[in-house]
């Protein structure tokens, strides 16, 4: 029989033995071959049990941002807290919209028209809604901050956006991918939202540029803030990959599998670069700094409450990623969004 009981062996193998226990056991094992054999048996047992448990483990999923957990949620089988769902749904809605626009140009109304009257055929870009200069060739847009979602992270009232949100989140979460749902419900939801808030919150514009990727541009009435942020980003000088590597001290993190539209450097911050990648019909901006360069922020743009609100939205999205700051500009489907965030992690 053995000189050492199972419990002691397992405690030791689990790394939970005290120093005294460890020394005593190791001293014994040094001179006792049978016990050494038993130790190996138990080690294998632990490994086997661990592997079996691994077979009965849930698939890994990215955790929602911590700040979305502000309140205990009411009952419901939504896979995501509502506020996070609202954020996704906005991207989903935009994604669906842009897909619809790409595929079925004649049948899909733009949000702008929903805001106006009834759904109609796709319109030309509204000049007055294009609130930013485009200094680079590919169009991109920005998810506008919603007026009725100021500083608190709690979700909007259960109607409008949350209905859209939960529907989208539910659909996205249940199937693991976004079903090719018709854009119509999104248009209705947007219309409802605008009707409720009694002023236009989102205006959609198709950027009809002669490039392979089209994006829906959404701007808020405070378009000048959007414009300035966007302009700053697109005005940054484009650099070579080699330069980016030098600036960062390592290769820039990119989302594998998606084309890199540009690498830019921040003229104001020496250690920071921007990676622009085309994902679906949107553009993802990754702001990266040298690892000793401190946290990334968009410098002095937080003067207005709208910009602060947008930064807050972006902060939520940005929290997914440890050392990168990610901005998502334009349309992304929900499964792209989570894949993307998963990849970056």
């Amino acid at each position, binding site marked *: 029989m053995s000189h050492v*009981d*199972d*419990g*002691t*062996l*397992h*405690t030791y193998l*689990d790394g*939970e033995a005290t120093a005294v226990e460890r020394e005593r056991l190791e001293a014994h094992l040094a001179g006792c071959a049978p016990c050494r054999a038993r130790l190996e048996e*138990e080690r294998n*047992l*632990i490994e*086997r*049990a*661990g592997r*079996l*448990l691994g*077979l*009965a*483990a*849930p*698939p*890994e*999923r990215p*955790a*929602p941002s*911590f700040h979305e*957990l*502000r*309140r*205990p*949620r009411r009952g419901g*089988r*939504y*896979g995501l*807290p509502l506020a996070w769902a609202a954020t996704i749904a906005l991207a989903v809605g935009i994604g669906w919209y842009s897909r619809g626009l790409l595929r079925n140009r004649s049948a899909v109304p733009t949000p702008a028209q929903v805001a106006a009257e009834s759904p109609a055929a796709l319109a030309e870009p509204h000049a007055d809604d294009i609130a930013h200069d485009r200094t680079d060739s590919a169009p991109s847009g920005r998810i506008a901050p919603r007026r009725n979602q100021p500083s608190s992270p709690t979700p909007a009232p259960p109607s409008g956006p949350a209905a859209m949100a939960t529907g989208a989140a539910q659909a996205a*979460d*249940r199937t693991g991918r976004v079903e090719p749902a018709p854009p119509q419900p999104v248009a209705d939801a947007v219309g409802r939202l605008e009707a409720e808030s009694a002023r236009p919150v989102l205006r959609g514009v198709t950027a009809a540029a002669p490039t392979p990727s089209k994006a829906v541009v959404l701007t808020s009435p405070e378009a000048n803030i959007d414009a300035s942020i966007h302009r700053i980003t697109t005005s940054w000088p484009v650099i070579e990959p080699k330069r980016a590597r030098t600036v960062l001290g390592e290769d820039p993190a990119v989302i594998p599998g998606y084309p890199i539209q540009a690498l830019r450097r921040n003229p104001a911050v020496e250690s920071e670069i921007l990676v622009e990648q085309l994902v679906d019909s949107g553009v993802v901006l990754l702001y990266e700094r040298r690892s000793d360069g401190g946290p990334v922020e968009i410098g002095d743009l937080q003067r207005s409450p709208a910009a602060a609100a947008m930064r807050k939205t972006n902060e939520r999205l940005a929290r997914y990623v440890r050392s990168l700051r990610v901005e998502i500009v334009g349309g992304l489907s929900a499964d792209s969004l989570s894949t993307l965030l998963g990849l970056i992690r």
Partner: protein
Amino acid sequence: MPEDLADVYRTTYAALVRFLYRKVWDAERAADLAQEAFARAVVHRPSNPRGWLFVVAANMARDEARREARERRHLTLLRNEPEPAAPQPDDRLSAELEGARVRKALDDLTPRDREVLLLWDAGQSYDEIAAQTGLARGAVGTTLARARRRLVEAYEKGSEAEHVARR
């Protein structure tokens, strides 16, 4: 010094989901409950968040199981067999079968042994396990040894039985 809850979240969320999954056997539901537990922690601000979270999670899962047992008229989560599934690609089907076998083997353990094993697998230390289960710290190793052995034995016996039955 109390740990920042956001840090606890970062380090413990996945483990909590894993722990809950072995109770509710539904990944989405497990994630829901984990988030709910963290949301409550934000409100209650426990001084020992990690331990508190696992206790709360275990209670929530248990309450939910009781509620569902009352509400359900039929077992949709069968103890003995995997759910009859639509034709699936082979590797996914076999993974599910294996998962179901492990689940069945887990059922073979006593509740305490199972709890200790699942807590360990969710990253709890012996001290934390002792605190949560009421076991003496010195008994945790013995319990784990027994639980692991029973799990493996039950799993192997279960597979054997299946093979015999199939013939």
